[in-house]
Structures are given as C-alpha cells and as structure tokens.
C-alpha cells in the first residue's frame, strides 16, 4: 500500500509540475542555472569515467580474444557496442543518480525542512513548477552528456587498445565501422531521454515530500539514489525489450 501511495503521490506531483506555470522570465533564469548545476557540473566526472571505462572494456576484450581466427578488430566492435548500448546511457545514468539525484533531493529537501517551500506556496507560487520544472527542462540537455560519454568511451578504448599494442589503428577503425546499426544509436538516445526525466523527477519527489530535519534530508538522498537506480534499471529492461527484441 505504501508503494502504491508513493506512486500515486509521484504522479500527482507531476501533475502539479506541469500545472500553473511560473513567470517566463524567472523560469528562463532558473533553467540556465539548473543546466549549469546539473549538466555542466557533471561533465568532469562523466568524461573521466567514460574514457577509462572505454579503455578497460577494450583491454578486457583484447585479453579474452585468444583464438587467432577471431579478428582483432572485434575489440573495437565490442567496445563500440558496449559503450553505445549500455555503458554510456545506463552506467553513466546510475552515476548521475548518485551525483545529480542526491543534489536534487538534498536541495529540495533542505528547502522543505526550512519552510522555504511553504514560503513559496504562501506567496501563491506553484512550488512544484518553480522547483522541478526547470530541472526537467535542464535535463533535456542530458543526451549531449551521453553523446560526449560515447565519444570519450570509444576514444578511451582506442587509446588503450592501440597504445597497449592489442590492435593496430587501422584494424580498430575498421572494427568500429563493422555492422554498424543506426537504430542502436536511436535506441540509446530514446532511453537517455527517459532516463533524464527519471533523474530529474524521482529525486525531486523524495526531496519534495520528505519530512523531518537535517538527518532526514541525508536519508532521503540515499533513498532517492536507491529508487532512482531501481527505476532506471527497470525502465532500461522494459525499453530494451520493446525496442530491440
């Protein structure tokens, strides 16, 4: 029953988010602020992780290809498929659930416990729209982060595979181009958009409806990370089943 109540509350929150809109000029500034905090602020860790994950995937694949009949270009093929289909959109989203999700929950949760949300409501401002809508719009730029992640993941794989002496540069480029299915990229970006919405709204729900004090803000952030990850994984499974099988 508690879960059903929470799911219902989440959708009612979404209704409120898309309800009465905040003044456009104020909203515009909030969206730019959120893009800076949620997206630009995450680029460093995303770039770092993507490069090294790509590199490790290439090394692992290369080390497991002992059969001389299997072409070395397969290292690039495997790295490309892994990075585009799963590592960039899903793995990075899990990382973002920790970084961006915790930030969203704690910032909204702190506002809740210090009566800042009450202050907005008393002024006649739709607090759900004011606080959550700009985050959703800012997260629409999240696919750019994933595109950068894909590029750096493959670059990391190239550097590790070529500098490590596992594959020749020409073989790597050839492997990258082998059996390329454009729809895989479309699938990756479709799920990235869904993940972006989840990353903005699930942590926001945990922050908006939290009760208590500073300790509970911390607990809400942890709970938000767990539930955002769960929802991401289930959505990933459902969308993969729908689009690829």
């Amino acid at each position, binding site marked *: 029953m508690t879960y059903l109540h929470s799911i219902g509350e989440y959708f009612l929150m979404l209704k409120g988010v898309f309800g009465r809109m905040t003044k456009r000029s104020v909203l515009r500034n909030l969206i730019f602020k959120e893009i800076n905090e949620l997206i630009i602020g995450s680029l460093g860790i995303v770039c770092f992780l993507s490069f090294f994950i790509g590199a490790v995937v290439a090394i692992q694949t290369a080390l497991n290809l002992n059969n001389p009949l299997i072409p070395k270009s397969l290292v690039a093929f495997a790295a490309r498929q892994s990075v585009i289909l799963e590592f960039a959109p899903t793995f990075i989203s899990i990382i973002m659930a920790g970084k961006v999700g915790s930030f969203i929950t704690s910032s909204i949760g702190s506002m809740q416990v210090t009566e800042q949300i*009450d202050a907005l409501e*008393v002024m*006649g401002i739709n607090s759900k729209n004011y606080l959550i809508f700009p985050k959703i719009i800012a997260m629409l730029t999240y696919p750019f982060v994933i595109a950068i992640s894909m590029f750096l993941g493959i670059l990391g794989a190239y550097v590790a595979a070529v500098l490590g002496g596992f594959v020749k540069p020409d073989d790597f480029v050839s492997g990258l181009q082998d059996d390329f299915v454009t729809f895989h990229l479309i699938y990756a970006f479709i799920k990235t958009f869904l993940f972006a919405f989840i990353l903005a709204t699930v942590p926001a729900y945990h922050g908006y409806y939290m009760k208590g004090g500073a300790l509970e803000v911390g607990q809400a952030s942890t709970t938000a990370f767990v539930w955002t990850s769960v929802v991401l994984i289930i959505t990933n499974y459902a969308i993969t089943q729908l689009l690829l099988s």
Partner: protein
Amino acid sequence: MIEVKDLHKAFNGEEVLKGLNFVFERGKTNLIIGQSGSGKSVFLKNMLGIFTPEKGTIEYDGKPYSEFTDEERRELRKEIGMVFQGGALFDSMTVKENVMFPLKMFTKMKKTEMEERVNTVLERVNLIGADDKMPSEISGGMQKRVSIARAIVNRPKYLFCDEPNSGLDPTTATVIDNLIQKITHEFDITTIIITHDMNSVLEIGEKIAFLKDGLLAWTGTKDEIFKTEDKTVTDFVYSSNLFKKVRDAQLKGY
C-alpha cells in the same frame, strides 16, 4: 480586516479548533497566544488557506475565503506577507535577491524601480550594507529582518508572523517586535502574530486572542491581560518566573 466566524478544524476525527470567532483589526498588531498544542499554528494555516476548515468562515475584508475563485485566491496571496519562524529565506539567493523575489514574481516593475523599492525596505529594517550577503552569512536577528523586508516589499494588506522572535536574544526580540508594530501602523496592515513570548505581549499586544484547547479562552489588550483574574490566562502569563516576581512585588507594594 480578517474576521473568523465559528471556525472548526479536525485531523483524523480529532477536533483541533472548536468554533473560533475573532476579528483581526486593520492597522493593529493582533496577537494569538497560547500553550503549545492549543491550535495556534492550525488557526494560522487555516487563515493562510493551507488548511481547509470543516466548518466556519474566514472573511478577508468582508468576503469569505471559501467564495474566492482560484484567480481571486492567487491575487489574495499576493497581498499576504508572511514571516516564518525560521525566516525561510531562500538560501541560494543573496539578501537583496530574497527581498526582490516577490517583486520579480508578481510585478512588472523595471529593475531600477525594484532596486529602489528593495533599498527603501532594507533601510526601513536597518539592513543597508547587507544586501549582497547570503542568508548563511548573517545573524539570526538579521535573517528575521530580511524575512520582514521580504514580507512587506510588495506592500501587503495582511502580515502573518509565526513566532517572529523565537530563538533571538531579548534585545533583538524587542527590536523585531517594535519593527513589526511600526510597519503595521505605517502601512496600515492587518498584522497577525503567533507568539509564546510574554515580552512581545507586553510590547505590542494591541489585540490579543488567547487560545486554549482549540477554543478562544480570552480576548483583550496588553494592559488588560496583566489585570485579568481569569485563571486560565493568569496560569499562562505567570508561568514565567519574572512576571510572577513582578506581580508579587506589586502586590507587596514595592
């Protein structure tokens, strides 16, 4: 003026407000006092429209709140200023941005006009020079003054204050009380203050509603409260050792 008629509010079948009647007068500091759990905050939240009463009406300048359309309710909220117990300042904004916030949201004023209005209000609450500071960089008393500045910047008709001097030292608390009273008279606002603090009652209690167990137990002024022989009120007022000693000294003719 806000008139409350036969106000009832219950939670899970338990009645918290049991038929309150009171008139909060314009241009006066109206105080709601009473022990914890007496229903003060619920009373305030009903007036702010956060809670919906089961029975009774709250009339803003003669019009019942329940008859307001959504648009009228939004307009009414623009005429309400609220000073929260903890200040409730937006911690991602500077003092100036906090005070400017209602103007940005609800007016079409130019930036220079807004800055002029903000500076006037900050001057009024003695906060000139603190405008670029963040809420975390200023003292509790200053935060309360910023909160008052934000509440009055859009020239509200109604000012609600939830324990505005809780957590402040007696000197700062008196400064805040006097500031609220001066603003109330100057802008002819209907001010409603929830407080536990008998010093506030003594300073600014122009009209007092004493709540006990969800009922209006006593009404009067700051002069009358110290003369009343109503036991419910005297038990509350003289629960403070200081007031008790002053009364005993007076009785002994010191």
